[in-house]
């Protein structure tokens, strides 16, 4: 029997390559709850976030920017409702916006040098990325992301950049960008790597 006869239509196409064999394997990662691989995180409620947020605001008013920032970063919301996570992000962005550009680097260096500081800066990086990802943070407030979507066309000026309403949002974004720059200077690329690999999402 020639080898050629053994070919069938199925073996000549590439269709078999698209078979997701992980589904067919009993103990593969898709048939397994990967969250059980990690120790559970304590749940943070929305009320906790609000209490913290008032405390942080008090610190800010008292001029203790570093204390305020540390306070936020020490209690990241890894396990909580979307509302709690969003509220904590707003608190952090408020703190970040209230700190002068010239104070950023010394403040970050101070935190980095303290014990456990590297971990805090990793948390900060996570929130910076989260803030950037959420499009119009802080100032845009509770503006729904749905309103933002029609702008995704890139270079078109008309309509896509409604100046007035977006102004505060882009201001917040530039704050985040400058924090990102300063943070990488202090905590290095390792900080970005940790933000990407970490399974604890804020």
């Amino acid at each position, binding site marked *: 029997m020639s080898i050629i006869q053994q070919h069938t239509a199925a073996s000549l196409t590439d269709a078999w390559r698209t078979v997701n064999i992980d589904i067919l394997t009993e103990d593969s990662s898709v048939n397994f709850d990967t969250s059980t*691989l990690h120790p559970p995180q304590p749940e943070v409620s929305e009320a906790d976030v609000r209490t913290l947020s008032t405390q942080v605001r008090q610190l800010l008013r008292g001029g203790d920017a570093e204390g305020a920032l540390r306070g936020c970063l020490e209690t990241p919301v890894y396990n909580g409702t979307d509302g709690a996570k969003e509220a904590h992000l707003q608190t952090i962005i408020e703190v970040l916006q209230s700190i002068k550009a010239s104070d950023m680097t010394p403040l970050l260096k101070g935190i980095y040098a303290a014990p456990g500081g*590297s971990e805090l800066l990793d948390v900060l990086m996570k929130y910076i990325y989260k803030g950037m990802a959420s499009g119009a943070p802080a100032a845009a407030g509770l503006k729904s992301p749905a309103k933002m979507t029609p702008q995704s066309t890139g270079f078109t000026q008309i309509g896509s950049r409604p100046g007035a309403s977006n102004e505060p949002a882009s201001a917040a974004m530039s704050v985040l960008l400058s924090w990102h720059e300063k943070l990488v200077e202090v*905590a*290095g690329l*390792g900080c970005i*790597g940790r933000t990407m690999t*970490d*399974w604890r999402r804020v």
Partner: protein
Amino acid sequence: MAAPEVHHLFHNPIADHSFSADHATLAVARDSTVELYGKAGNAFKLKDVLKGHDKTVTSVDIAPNSGRIVSCSQDRNALVWEPSPTGYKPTLVLLRISRAATFVRWSPSETKFAVGSGDRVIAVCYFEEENDWWVSKHLKKPIRSTITSVAWHPNSVLLAAGSTDAHARVFSAFVKGVDERPEPGVWGERLPFNTVCGEYLNNSAGWVHSVSFSPSGNALAFAAHDSSITVVYPSGPEQPPRAVLSVPTQLLPFKSLIWKAEDEIIAAGYDCEAFRFQGGEGGWQLVGTVESKGSAGHGEQREESALNMFRQMDLKGKVKDDTQLKTIHQNTISTIRPYEVSGGRVTKFSSSGVDGRVVVWNA
């Protein structure tokens, strides 16, 4: 200190390299072959090409005493290459895995080797005299993902494995009839096959690239993709470890790490150079690079004349040649291994990387 020995073998990535005990032979994994280089003067010349795998070879290891070479590949096979007067003779080892084999290492006793795989198992292979055959036993539970690296304890019974499920684990790979019963130690007292002696992950839990036991075997270090190294000091069987020390760094992740001595670890990876960590049970810290950058651009110092400057401007449109990294390796270092050990300390180590270079460093 003498300058590092640089051997630029070819312009392909080196997945893994291994020196023979006398340092006269160097085996490197290149594409789907294992290339053997022999020392001729100060250079390494291609001596033999071991062809047997039909997919990328992922790892290679030379047993220091017997001279046997084991290689494993993405074709799901491992081959043991037996030296003979007429060249190396391959023996296929049935690993019984359905995904790529990723990493292989001989045990210090050289009677066994362990193969990590993408099939969520580690195949521990040993030779059965009566059948004249390499047999494999699987370490399976509780591995949840691809094994990226394995490392043997000096007693040849315990095996550490790093995985993409972000855990570094210590298993017993005790094979009856092959191994002597191990002395009870910090990792456990009774150690039947597949006993899980420890399971560790660090805070941010990146997948683990490399694991290594300290020279005494009483501590374990692993490097993860979160740019950190973590050192674990176990306190005894069934007890939480005495200390788990994580050192997050500002650098890119490390692909490979070795212990220089109980108080020093060397790690290298995506930053294209090796870094030194020092410490002990009280804490570890990054102390600096192994490479000294005094000889910027390694050796080739250009004439800094106005003529040269304008010539460069004319030729390249810029004054400085910035197409080369300041490090010796010009790309990621994928493996580092001890090269020379004296008095319990590694005095030289070798590194190989994606740039096709093998470098021997003074540790």
